[in-house]
């Protein structure tokens, strides 16, 4: 969604062309991200000739402030949906930055790894908005990601296994 998309596109802005093809996954309720992504990839294709990317939508796992019990149900539904998608894409690297959408995808990837089908490296970058506390996705993926990046020093202190590179968006 919105801010997350803007942030993740900034993170991608300095990546080399080796990070290809890029598969973008976002919530079906998200109206604006597709345009931002296309615009980003359009600009990118002006510099790099071999730009490849795809777009996929999955059901949103949780609305802001949705209740706990219904969140579990909707997240399970999203996992059911993202499992075949993740299996199809078989990513080497998953980069995410916090929308609820990323949790089912990462959990699907973990499952595929456990089943010996494909081991993806999961890199989570917490949003720049998070100065003192982690988002819910962050709290979950702190334990399940391979690399967990925070952008403010207070978080590095609270979450010692995290990586602090300063502000990167």
């Amino acid at each position: 969604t919105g801010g997350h998309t803007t942030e993740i596109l900034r993170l991608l802005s300095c990546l080399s062309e080796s990070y290809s093809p890029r598969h973008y996954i976002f919530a079906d309720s998200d109206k604006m991200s597709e345009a931002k992504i296309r615009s980003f990839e359009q600009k990118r294709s002006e510099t790099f000739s071999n730009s490849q990317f795809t777009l996929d939508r999955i059901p949103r796992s949780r609305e802001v402030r949705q209740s706990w019990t219904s969140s579990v149900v909707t997240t399970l539904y999203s996992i059911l949906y993202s499992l075949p998608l993740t299996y199809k894409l078989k990513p080497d690297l998953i980069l995410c930055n916090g929308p609820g959408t990323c949790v089912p995808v990462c959990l699907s990837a973990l499952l595929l790894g456990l089943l010996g089908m494909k081991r993806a490296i999961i890199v989570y970058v917490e949003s720049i908005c998070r100065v003192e506390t982690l988002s819910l996705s962050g709290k979950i993926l702190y334990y399940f990601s391979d690399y967990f990046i925070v952008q403010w020093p207070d978080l590095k202190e609270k979450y010692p296994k995290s990586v602090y590179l300063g502000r990167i968006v």
Partner: protein
Amino acid sequence: FRFKDSLAEDLRGADLVISHAGAGSCLEALEEGKPLIVVINEKLMNNHQLELAKRLHRDGHVLYCNCSTLVETLQSMDLSTLKPFPPGQPEKFALFLDKVVGFQ
């Protein structure tokens, strides 16, 4: 004016920006190098939105007030005390990721 695609043009033409504490709005204004006053409505916002505004204020990048103190802030503000906000460095992320993935 309600839902413009981008406020970038308006931002560039402004001398002062008064905004709510949404991260996107704050960061956009700061990145354009505009002096920014953040107005907090504690009743409307959840705690996490305040974190960034508070931090930016603590680091001297923005002025900060609530709806009732806005006029007073505008009257007594000294914008020269605001520190410039350096841009983020995605290149550091790229370097880190290259190492992680093995593209060195």
